[in-house]
């Protein structure tokens, strides 16, 4: 397949990940990604693309390359196994059940 965009330039704008805060007091949540030449234009594009219906009061854009993700194959060893550690949950303590305000 030809990889020659029409026009004279072939390099693509960098990829940005977009995070939108839907209202004050909530976290920014990943909405998707877009291409833009710099951070300011990424913000403007993100506003046009991901908040056409008042979906947000704040947007973050982050260069996709700047994100380091955990290795999905390392699930078992990377995330501590909850096995045998029930005592970290309040539900482990049954004798106090029924005691008020506890």
């Amino acid at each position: 397949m030809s990889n020659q965009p029409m026009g004279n330039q072939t390099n693509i704008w960098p990829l940005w990940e977009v995070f939108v805060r839907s209202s004050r007091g909530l976290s920014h949540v990943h909405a998707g990604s877009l291409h833009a030449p710099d951070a300011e234009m990424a913000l403007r594009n993100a506003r046009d693309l991901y908040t056409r219906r008042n979906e947000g009061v704040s947007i973050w854009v982050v260069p996709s390359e700047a994100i380091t993700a955990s290795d999905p194959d390392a699930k078992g060893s990377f995330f501590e196994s909850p096995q045998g550690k029930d005592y970290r949950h309040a539900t482990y303590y049954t004798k106090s059940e029924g005691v008020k305000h506890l």
Partner: protein
Amino acid sequence: MAAAPLQPVAAEASEEDRAGQAAFDRIIADDSRIEPTDWMPEAYRKTLTRQISQHAHSEIIGMQPEANWITRAPSLKRKSILMAKVQDEAGHGLYLYSAAETLGTPRDVLNQQLLDGKAKYSSIFNYPARSWADMGAIGWLVDGAAIANQVPLCRASYGPYGRAMVRICKEESFHQRQGFEILLELSHGTPEQKKMAQDAVNRFYAPALMMFGPPDDDSPNSKQSMAWNIKRFSNDELRQRFVGMIAEQVKVLGLTLPDPELRFDEETGKWIHMELDWQEFKDVIAGRGPCNAQRLERRREAHANGAWVREAARAYAQKAGQRKMQKAGAA
């Protein structure tokens, strides 16, 4: 997100592939979601890249039949609505390219496949929009069929695709309603207007039903897609469900569907519709529809005409970056 590079298919599965396949099978069996950094079979990646990019291309090409009517909308209200809808289609295309890209193929490669005429998109957009009533029929029937198709895709096993579909479905319901209301207004207007509405419904009925794809016994990829939890219902199942919905809705419009065989079969609990012209479907997909050449030509032209915008944005970003550095140096 930075996706894993495409892995060449090894003649013999490595230890890693076997472990990856086992984890993949478990996730699918649990009806859970696959994410971009997970191991996935090459065929799964390829199928999804094709399906999501075709879906994105359909949204982008789908802007054209309606955009042609923006300047001729009968009122300012209708014009504003139509512009918002066409803008949504552009947005939907971008959500989907964003999802497709997580599978490892860059966006400009996908875009180039469309411009080169090598990629497919929904056959429905190769039919002309001849009258204002077509804006109604497209919203009601075409967007209606798209919604029936897309709602189950919100649960597709590939995470980024499912999430894009959730966003799209939320926005799509306004599209169908505005179309329905255009037809409703016309069908309660003058006899000429009612005739125009009926004519639009007549022309879009069969092509809209064909949007669900070929019949189940002629849809070779469906089985694998269902096994992978990408597709949840068969083409025929979704089609008969959709026919049942519009068979009721058309009564509210005071119009009729051009289908003498349409009936509800008590025995099977399914809707029966007329035989569709699958040769026509294949011809349109293969590029021999009424508007294929025109649609692609328009897309190429729009892309070429936008070149200066892309260049200007790049130059602006460069200049702004330099200015920032100078400022930082001076301080």
